[in-house]
């Protein structure tokens, strides 16, 4: 018999009792529906979790200068200054797997506004790419411009904690704060981000053009990270010491700190503390790392047998741990859904057995008019598979509708999964074959004489 003819016979047999067919396939409908819904909601939440992790900086790749060592003593990462802003440009140009990169200059010092002062955890000098790299947004005002970065303008963007500490209820926009006695105009306020994975308050931050921080504020690189020590011994913060000079007299009028900071000496060779890069996607991180490694080694002229003068770190571990949690949850739910599919299959088998018994005379008749046992097996098998596929199709609709409903009502992220739909079709067909086989086989083994006489 031709395939379509078999299907027609099957659908005709099913149409003789549509209500029963529907109820029989309900198990499959629920099973497939829950598989689809689980997959879609699972994929959606996995994507959402990955996005959250990304906003926590898990996609960020950290490039730090290497460690200096002398006479067997190493000074730890960052003790030499090998990274330059040109490295950032080179990375952006030559590493296709890197979406964006930003130079970072760090310092730690006191910030003063009016009568209040605060030492923020992070004072970052960077460029406009920083926001993209860190997946951060400006809540109020605006980000400083690329031109500010080029000119080393004294503008800054504040984190939420800083706003709270220095301004309380005032709007900080347009106000001037002083960092190490240098006046910065506040142009924007960063959105709130909370603690990072180490438990540090990420909102406790000032962001300014890296050129400004580098040449006007920190003066040197990480050499004076220990700002508390420097500021207590230095006279720079305490302006009174200028009034009562205790040291030797100078021949020329000494430049004040502000004057000196206002007229930075042109520096040819800038070094930066860190480069933050972000890969195109979480999957591209290893590729991005290897590309950056190649580019930087080439730029720094490091021979193949020499160790790198920088180190590249990512937070893959963290990403993996978190995404594996969602994968596990999705798999667990899938297992439950699979169980309901099996239960649905048993339901199909049950009803098919009933149907075979009920239609014993029909089977006998079909055999009497020339159906071989293979024809009968085929007929009942196709009937079961049709039933399952029908249930599968309904299940796909229901599962998809269910996940859409979840999205509508709970705003849980949902992702349509083609793989899940294909798998559902495949699984429901195989459930039909597996659970339809025994009843079909039983039907095909019937003796036509007894089947015809069956009451």
């Amino acid at each position, binding site marked *: *018999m*031709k395939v379509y*003819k078999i299907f027609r*016979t099957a659908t*005709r047999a099913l149409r*003789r009792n549509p209500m029963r067919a529907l109820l029989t396939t309900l198990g499959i409908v629920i099973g497939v529906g829950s598989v689809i819904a689980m997959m879609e909601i699972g994929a959606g939440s996995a994507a959402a979790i990955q996005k959250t992790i990304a906003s926590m900086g898990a996609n960020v790749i950290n490039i730090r200068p290497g460690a200096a060592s002398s006479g067997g003593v190493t000074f730890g990462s960052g003790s030499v200054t090998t990274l330059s802003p040109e490295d950032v440009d080179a990375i952006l140009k030559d590493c296709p797997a890197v979406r964006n990169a930003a130079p970072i200059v760090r310092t730690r010092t006191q910030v003063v506004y009016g009568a209040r002062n605060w030492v923020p955890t992070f004072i970052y000098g960077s460029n406009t790419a920083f926001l993209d790299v860190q997946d951060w947004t400006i809540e109020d005002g605006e980000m400083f411009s690329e031109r500010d970065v080029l000119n080393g303008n004294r503008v800054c963007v504040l984190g939420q904690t800083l706003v709270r500490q220095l301004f309380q209820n005032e709007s900080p926009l347009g106000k001037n704060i002083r960092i190490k006695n240098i006046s910065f105009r506040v142009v924007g306020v960063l959105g709130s981000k909370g603690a990072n994975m180490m438990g540090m308050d990420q909102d406790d931050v000032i962001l300014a053009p890296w050129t400004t921080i580098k040449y006007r504020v920190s003066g040197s690189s990480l050499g004076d990270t220990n700002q508390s020590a420097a500021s207590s011994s230095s006279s720079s913060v305490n302006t009174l010491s200028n009034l009562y000079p205790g040291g030797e007299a100078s021949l020329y009028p000494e430049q004040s700190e502000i004057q000196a900071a206002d007229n930075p000496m042109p520096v040819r060779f800038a070094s930066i503390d860190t480069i933050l890069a972000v890969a195109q996607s979480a999957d591209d991180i290893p590729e991005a790392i290897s590309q950056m490694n190649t580019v930087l080694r080439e730029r720094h002229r490091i021979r193949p047998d020499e160790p790198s003068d920088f180190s590249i770190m990512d937070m893959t571990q963290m990403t993996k741990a978190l995404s594996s949690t969602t994968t596990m949850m999705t798999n667990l739910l899938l297992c439950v859904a699979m169980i309901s599919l099996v239960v649905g299959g048993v339901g199909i088998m049950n009803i098919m057995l009933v149907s075979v018994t009920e239609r014993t*005379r*029909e089977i*006998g*008749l*079909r*055999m*009497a*008019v*020339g*159906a*071989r*046992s*293979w*024809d009968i097996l085929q007929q009942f098998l196709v009937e079961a598979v049709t039933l399952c596929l029908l249930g599968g199709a309904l299940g796909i609709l229901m599962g998809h509708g269910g996940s859409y409903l979840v999205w509508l009502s709970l705003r849980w992220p949902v992702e349509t999964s083609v793989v899940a739909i294909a798998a559902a079709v495949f699984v429901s067909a195989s459930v039909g074959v597996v659970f339809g086989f025994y009843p079909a086989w039983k039907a095909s083994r019937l003796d*036509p*004489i007894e089947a*015809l006489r069956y009451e």
Partner: protein
Amino acid sequence: MELIELREIRKTYDMGDIEVPVLKGVSLTVTHGELVALMGTSGSGKSTLMNILGCLDRPTSGEYWLEGEDVSRMSADKRAVLRNRKIGFVFQSFNLLPRTSALENVAMPLSYAAGRISERESRRRAEEMLRRVGLADRLNHEPSQLSGGQQQRVAIARALVNTPSILFADEPTGNLDSRTTEEILRMFQRLNEEEGITIILVTHDAHVARHARRVIHIQDGLIVQGSPAVDEHPITSDAGWEVSSSEGRGGR
């Protein structure tokens, strides 16, 4: 070549401990174009013989030649193909598919035919058959909407749709009233005389057997008498097997 040739057919049922012999050596010949009645009381073995003749069952021993083919050594599937090609069945309980139109019921055997028969061709043939049994206006009726006589006529159409060389009717009138019985039996006679279809009627009713030209009596698994029956019911010209549609409706 004879249509049916049975040689020393024996059939023994194995009931666990004891073996029950049902047919004890039946030899029989049926030629083309015969109308034979197979008579016997219940338990005489007539049903078993009918099953063997209809290729539904295999004899324990003996030979069965159907149009030169040895059926007794065929596998179940080969016999199924043979049944499809050469044998039509009419049953006492009609055995129509429920909730399926008369047309589809009649076309059903064609779907198991070896050659490719297109949807249109099988429809056409089923329609033609239904027309010949006088149910041209009942094509799309389901069995539940038809009377007993009409149902049996659908069954006859189904048995004939494959143009078989032999038609087995197992108590075809057992569930019908006397008037429809007469109608159906006349149809068989017509088919036999005009179409030359070989018909074997299995019955325990002597009245039914009288319509046959030859009656075979079977008793205790043996043929006791195989004489041509006296035709007490000559076919009248007005009651052909091609029942008019008005009569078809009246049979309801």
